């Protein structure tokens, strides 16, 4: 369906590219340097923390489904597991990683 939309639109729309139209949008200025700039490496650290906690969420889903059968034991187990991870978050916070400059 997406491909059909692309194809259909190609049939009926005008196509008139010329060099001035094909430059990047930057308020009609020429871009200085390359566009693939180095961005802040904090994004990378956030991605790392995300991976840790997303794995935790993956563990939590089956835990939640089977919770009625497992009972108190599972709850205590999960609290201990989360405490360990939370210590990690606390550590990252104290390190100042979560602060955006």
């Amino acid at each position, binding site marked *: *369906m*997406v491909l059909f*939309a*692309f194809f*259909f*639109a*190609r049939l*009926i*729309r*005008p*196509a*008139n*590219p010329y060099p001035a*139209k*094909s*430059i*990047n*949008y*930057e308020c009609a200025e020429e*871009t200085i340097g390359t*566009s*693939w*700039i180095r*961005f802040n490496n904090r*994004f990378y650290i*956030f*991605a790392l*923390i*995300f991976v840790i*906690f*997303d794995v*935790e*969420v993956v563990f*939590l*889903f089956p835990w*939640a*489904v*089977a*919770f*009625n059968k497992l*009972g*108190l034991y599972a*709850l205590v187990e*999960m*609290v201990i597991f*989360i405490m360990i991870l*939370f210590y990690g*978050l606390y550590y990252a*916070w104290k390190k100042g990683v*979560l*602060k*955006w*400059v």
Partner: protein
Amino acid sequence: MFEVILTSSIQVVVVIVVVLTGCAWATWLERKVLGHMQQRIGPSYTGPYGLLQPVADGLKLIFKEDIVPDSVERLTYTLGPMLSFVPALLTFAVIPYSRDFSLFGLEFKGVISDLNIGILWIFAVTSLGVYGLVLAGWSSGSKYSLLGGIRSSAQMISYEVSYGLSIVGVIVIAGTLSMTELVAKQASDSIWFFENWYLWRNPIGFLLYLTCAIAETNRTPFDLPEAESELVAGYHTEYSSMRFALFFIGEYANMLAVACVATTLFFGGWNGPAFLSFVPPVIWFLIKVFVFMFCYVWLRATFPRFRYDQLMRFGWLVLLPLAILNAMVTGLVVLWLG
């Protein structure tokens, strides 16, 4: 066997058509409601109350020239809009919109595909949408797009964790991941037809879900990725014509999907009052979804945008601990009450 294929194909076509029209008129709803909230009248020239505005917009976008800058990476530039559009539609496969019914002698189920891991499917598919934004932002070869793409990826993965955790409470209570079973468990025959909604049993979970969902769909107050005043339009700065339209439909389809999931998880899905049982259940479903879409627009008219450091701090130091605490406390209460 043939009948099953026939009924599910009919359902797929109908649901896709309904979703796409819903998206189109969601843009109209947004502009009209925003207009009235800001003491304007919104679109009014095209048709009665401007109701034909989405048609005009669609035609205009099809007839527009597709400008592809020289600096783009062709393959990923094309993949970007597709990847943000297709996952948004895939979520609707598991959303139950009605009870089983028969029409023209054919037996229909109230959902396209009754997966027993429905919620998991929704979360898996919606998180694919971030690829579309990142690829689009990166491949455009423009600084605005790159920053928009990076920002949106960081924001979406930050809120993804709390988004997943916010519904753990509901799953603990219900003990199932299947969407149809969740709806069935919220049914009630009494006059207080809303007594079994999970909204009452897990209100904090609902608020968390709403907040994270708004951030996931990149809407105001969390619309940092496409902050017009600083990034032009974020990741879709360099897109035009149909490619731009796909981004737009994808965004609105995501909003619709979020509204449908919230309806199913917290507001009893298609269950309506028992004393009004002659009204088809799909009507109740649509009413609830409409209320959610209205709230989306309302939020946009009310809140200013967050600053980026506030957004990150809020996501990691408020929402995440709160979501985990909510899941644990829900577990404790479920144990306590047996």
